[in-house]
């Protein structure tokens, strides 16, 4: 038999002025199971709490109902009080008779009636409350950062700074990401390599940071605080521990006609290569698609010249398994390939380049040693046309529906740098809108127009036609002058949209995190939790969450690190006990609940059951991981057999409340 205590608060006059608290206490005292019903001036005060505690002990209560203010205000106070008196804190229910009763009603009679009904509903609910224990799960004090661009590096450095072990998994042979390919950064025009490479070295030298370059995440198991991740270290055919990065092998390699990815394929590298001079780790990698030894078994030059004996043609992919408490996703972005846009002639005219290609063309470490030359005939271009929004803000399957955010600024930067270095060059920028929100951004863009005399034209390029004389005819509209222009250009630069890395989608599946239709990771809350994914323990850093420039990426990377550190600092995590659970005897393994779960908390197990005829049968049943479940209850409604229920808000409890209100 339940022994329930009801405590009605006056809240000074806040409640007592419109609700007859004595009558409420009196009425609720007659409810079934209620053994004590009291009212008091201030229930939340020390003495009010003592009243509750004493009653619990004295009457050996099995449930407590407090009729007071909103549970959002004092539910925790009374739960703690109950716990200190030896009653399970989840056996306390609050009837909200202040915010949702006394403060909104003026008529004492009706407000009192309502307060009684709310109290009755709470009593009906508490009858069915079960004692719940918040589970604890330990936290592994190690973080994994997926992606070694500026976002991943910054996150790893910050986590390491706090004293935790961090592993960076990078799929390329070196960390550094897109920022390493960039020449100058806006709006300060400082050199990207000069600010990035010290950070790369810092990451490599930090004893808390382990860099797994040329590696990929192969599998993720577990949940917040306790992930088990399998990392695939791809065979690079060079022993990382022995290679000194002297580069002799890359000089001697006879296979010199491999398109150089780092320079966007604008020049060639050798089959054994180090992506760029400041690569971290500075270790050679053999490209098995081009290496003559690996393809035909005939060559072996690199192995002969390597004094460290680091070349190992027999190396294979290696799997490492490691446990982590937190995972930070920093998979970054790629510019799209504009070859679907026939009108821009990108696929057949070498002088039509993307902005990242221009970045390499202008870089001192790039294919032309920093002199801007046309890729086709290596001559100096005199007229350059920039086209904005190529693939961005597109409503068709060729492009992306969003604004890529960084293009307006980097185009202003390119235009400015070109005008500065080559004042004899005319630069045209065709724009739809110039978007420059950001510190010193608009000033930067205006400087390009006013100081450097870059021709900004509102309109879009409709057709790019390479001509026989090597020039390019650019047909465009000038909307403000209402005319169609033809520009005789030497080079065309396309500001292509950026898209999340291709590895992001399979990774999201492994991590059970959510993605939007554009494959950007979805944050837990767009305003208030921008660096956490909805899946506990998975954090988002950089452009994998949405287009971002470098300062924003670094800010978000540090924020993600702070969140990860907050998690790693804990020895164990207290789980919310109000989670879903499945009645295995009723579950028919239909998977309806798994499909609606936003957290991937539900898995299926084959379990052996004893049947009524004493035989055994193996059935597939759902099981909820309480550490991952956040308690939304979507599965409880999706479940066709009624096997799924939610602790603290069970079907029977809510039904009881409904009944009490309707009675």
């Amino acid at each position: 038999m339940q022994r329930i205590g009801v405590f009605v608060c006056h809240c000074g006059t806040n409640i007592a002025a419109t609700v007859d608290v004595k009558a409420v206490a009196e009425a609720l005292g007659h409810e079934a199971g209620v053994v004590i019903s009291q009212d008091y001036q201030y229930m939340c005060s020390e003495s009010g709490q003592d009243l509750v505690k004493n009653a619990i002990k004295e009457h050996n209560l099995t449930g407590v109902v407090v009729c007071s203010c909103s549970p959002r205000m004092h539910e925790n106070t009374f739960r703690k009080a109950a716990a200190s008196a030896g009653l399970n804190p989840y056996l306390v229910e609050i009837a909200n008779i202040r915010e949702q009763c006394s403060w909104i009603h003026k008529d004492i009679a009706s407000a009192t009636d309502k307060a009684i009904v709310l109290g009755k509903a709470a009593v009906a609910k508490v009858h069915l409350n079960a004692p719940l224990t918040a589970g604890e799960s330990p936290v592994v004090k190690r973080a994994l950062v997926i992606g070694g661009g500026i976002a991943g590096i910054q996150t790893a450095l910050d986590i390491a700074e706090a004293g935790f072990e961090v592993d960076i998994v990078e799929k390329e042979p070196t960390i550094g990401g897109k920022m390493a390919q960039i020449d100058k950064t806006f709006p300060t025009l400082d050199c990207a390599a000069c600010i990035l490479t010290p950070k790369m070295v810092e990451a490599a030298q930090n004893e808390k940071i382990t860099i797994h370059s040329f590696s990929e995440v192969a599998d993720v198991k577990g949940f917040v605080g306790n992930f088990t991740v399998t990392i695939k270290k791809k065979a690079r055919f060079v022993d990382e521990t022995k290679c000194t990065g002297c580069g002799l092998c890359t000089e001697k390699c006879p296979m010199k006609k491999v398109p150089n990815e780092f320079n966007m394929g604008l020049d060639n590298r050798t089959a054994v290569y180090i992506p760029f001079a400041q690569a971290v780790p500075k270790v050679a990698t053999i490209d098995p698609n081009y290496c003559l030894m690996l393809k035909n078994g005939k060559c072996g030059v690199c192995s002969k010249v390597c004094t460290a004996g680091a070349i190992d043609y027999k190396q294979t992919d290696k799997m490492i398994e490691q446990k982590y408490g937190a995972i930070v996703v920093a998979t970054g972005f790629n510019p799209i390939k504009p070859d679907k846009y026939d009108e821009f002639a990108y696929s057949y005219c070498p002088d039509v380049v993307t902005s990242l290609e221009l970045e390499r063309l202008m870089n001192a470490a790039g294919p032309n040693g920093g002199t801007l030359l046309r890729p086709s005939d290596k001559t100096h271009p005199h007229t350059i046309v920039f086209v904005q929004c190529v693939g961005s803000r597109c409503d068709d399957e060729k492009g992306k529906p969003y604004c890529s955010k960084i293009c307006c600024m980097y185009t202003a930067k390119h235009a400015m740098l070109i005008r500065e270095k080559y004042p004899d060059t005319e630069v045209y920028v065709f724009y739809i809108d110039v978007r420059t929100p950001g510190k010193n951004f608009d000033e930067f863009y205006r400087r390009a127009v006013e100081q450097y005399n870059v021709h900004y034209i509102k309109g879009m390029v409709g057709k790019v036609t390479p001509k026989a004389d090597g020039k390019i005819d650019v047909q465009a509209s000038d909307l403000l002058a209402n005319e169609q222009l033809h520009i005789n250009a030497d080079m065309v630069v396309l500001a292509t949209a950026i898209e999340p890395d291709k590895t992001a989608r399979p990774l999201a599946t492994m991590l059970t995190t959510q993605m939007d239709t554009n494959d950007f990771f979805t944050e837990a809350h767009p305003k208030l939790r921008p660096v956490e994914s909805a899946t506990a323990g998975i954090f988002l850093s950089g452009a994998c969450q949405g287009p971002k420039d470098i300062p924003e990426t670094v800010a978000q990377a540090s924020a993600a690190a702070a969140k990860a550190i907050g998690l790693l600092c804990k020895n164990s995590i207290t789980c919310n006990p109000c989670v879903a659970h499945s009645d295995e005897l009723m579950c028919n393994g239909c998977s309806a609940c798994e499909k609606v779960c936003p957290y991937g908390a539900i898995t299926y197990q084959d379990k052996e059951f004893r049947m009524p005829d004493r035989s055994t049968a193996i059935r597939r049943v759902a099981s909820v991981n309480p550490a991952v479940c956040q308690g939304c209850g979507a599965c409880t409604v999706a479940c066709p057999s009624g096997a799924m229920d939610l602790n603290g808000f069970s079907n029977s409890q809510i039904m009881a409340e409904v009944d009490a209100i309707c009675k």
Partner: protein
Amino acid sequence: MQVNENFEPVIVAFCCNWCSYAGADLSGTNRLNYPSNVKIIRVPCSCRVNPMFILRAFQKGADGVILCGCHPGDCHYTSGNYFTRRRITLLYSMLDFLGIERNRTRLEWVSAAEGAKFAAVMNQFVEDVKKLGPNRRLEDLRCRKQ
């Protein structure tokens, strides 16, 4: 149809803990009045509300049921209110089939900042249900209070 001036409908409101319940609290904090017919049940998310609960309320004699959740896109659990929206659409077609007036059931998005909206919605809803009169069709007479 005759409107009974003295008819006081029983209204059950399901409010999600993160947005609408906080919105209801806010309308209380701002002392915005709405009729005392409305009794609120707190649920973690609007998607916790099984359409069965709504039918149960009608069976037990409720005259109107209103379900409030976070605005689409703002769900604390990311996607819960989208499930709610679909489920309620299905429930509507069933209620239509049963001949239960549309206005007795309502789905509203109320954020934690929309105390005024909460009060306005409740005022409107109670008025609408009053116009409809008591719920006779789904009420289980065995459950009727004496």
